């Protein structure tokens, strides 16, 4: 679904990533770990075209990202659910409207997705906050809302950057279980996280590969878990 070949990236200064090879095949489950500032978020952004590689090639759904127009990217993002690390919302709209927003911008009938939204908010435990504005939510609530929004269009690929960073252990496990469920339904999943315990919990339930960013490259990790 997403394939990086010898991909490199720099923000203008030194390289953040170099010679990265990564292939997210359909139905795969990956964890991405690495120290803070190692480039996890950067790699995620390369996967959903918020950034473009300075070297190598990246193909998403078989298409080279360099040949993509803005419209192509918009269409791709409807097939990739993204949980941004700093969860961006439209602050003047309610939680419900924000979660439904991907459905609205893609021109779908909102009524079709209403039930879906209620179910998702129920799953992530935000039924009571449905009419709150995003700035009124706690950090963890925002993360859960971002996950609900990422799932509303039932995308083929889910890229979650620290989805459990601000929630308690129990909620973290609940969210993990949700992602594992989705993986069993055939979704491709990539989770960036610091939380080794989370990976430890996941391992017995799902055939997950653990990747680690080390010295700008991706290496296999998690052998110690």
């Amino acid at each position, binding site marked *: 679904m997403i394939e990086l070949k010898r991909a490199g990236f720099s923000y203008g200064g030194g390289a953040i990533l170099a010679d990265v090879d990564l292939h997210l095949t359909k139905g795969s489950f990956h964890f991405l770990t690495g120290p803070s500032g190692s480039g996890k978020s950067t790699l995620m952004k390369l996967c*959903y075209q*918020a950034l*473009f590689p300075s070297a190598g090639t990246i193909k998403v759904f078989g298409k080279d990202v360099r040949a993509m127009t*803005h*419209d192509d*990217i*918009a*269409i*791709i*993002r*409807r097939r990739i659910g*993204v949980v*941004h690390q700093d969860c*961006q*919302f*439209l*602050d*003047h*709209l309610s939680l419900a*409207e924000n979660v439904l*927003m*991907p459905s*609205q*911008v*893609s*021109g779908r009938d*909102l009524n079709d997705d209403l039930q879906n939204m209620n179910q998702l908010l129920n799953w992530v435990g935000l039924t009571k906050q449905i009419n709150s504005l995003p700035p009124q939510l706690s950090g963890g609530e925002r993360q859960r809302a971002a996950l609900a*929004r990422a799932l509303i*269009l039932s995308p083929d690929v889910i890229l979650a950057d620290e989805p459990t960073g601000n929630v308690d252990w129990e909620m973290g496990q609940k969210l993990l279980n949700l992602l594992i469920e989705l993986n069993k339904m055939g979704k491709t999943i990539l989770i960036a996280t610091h939380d080794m315990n989370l990976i430890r919990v996941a391992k017995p339930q799902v055939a997950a590969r653990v990747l680690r960013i080390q010295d700008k490259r991706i290496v296999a990790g998690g052998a110690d878990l």
Partner: protein
Amino acid sequence: MSKISQYWQIAQDTLSGDQNADRVVPPSGYTASLTTFVSFAMAFLTVFALALFLATGRLADRWATELAGTSTVRISAPAGQMDAQAKTVLGILETTPGIASARLMSEDEQRRLLTPWFGVDLPMDNLPIPSLVEITEEGVGPDVNGLRLRLQAEAPGAILDDHTRWRRPMVKAAQRLRLLGGLSIGLIVGSTIAMITLAAQAALSANGQVISVLRLIGARDNYIAKAFVRRFTIRAFLGGLIGSLIAMLFIYFLPAVAEEGAFLTGLGFQGVQWLLPLFIPVIAAIIAFVSTRFAANSKLQRTA
């Protein structure tokens, strides 16, 4: 042509777009009221400029037609010399450049001209009525002073009467004023485009975060642009409508001045011309639509 129909299509679905789509852009403060105000003020000014344009146009046309072919030569001579002098005058006029034709008016015609003043049973035969030669000018007209001298020398009873000539500079002034009115409308349109473009750019910059969130969740540039364009279009239309209506009221209730102020009373609309200012809000909306669309497209094109 296909470009136009393409724009028409975009215009249609911009205006018919769902209400929800509007809400994705927060109700931004000052750029919104700025657009409405600019459109209001510009529409107000345009109505007056338009009134000036139409009124001076009417005036110039009327004066110009009154001028054309209205000079006359009046011949007062003892009965015996009348015919001879008339012949001489016609001969002179025929060879004068700037004169298309000259014609001696018949007695009947003269009687008709005088009837309003003296009544029907005017005993023309007993009165020393001068003969009149009607001149139709061409181009810039004859050299008046030269013609006067020649007439004086060869037909002492003939007097060139160009009483309408004094209006010539006024026709010119009226035409200038019309040009000024047209120019003002052009400048108003230009400033409206500039100001709405600036307001749209400000709104787009202020909402950079909104734009990036919308993109993150898969909104196309067209969808994002539409949310902005729709707002600006509607605001420009409303501002323009209010501005035009208020200006029309002002013009409608302009105090009527008597004949000597004909120029002032002329400043207004006549008949179907009253419909013209109603196009102003539509034009304001079109200007806002196109300017915002351009501003949004270039901004969205530039930012990844």
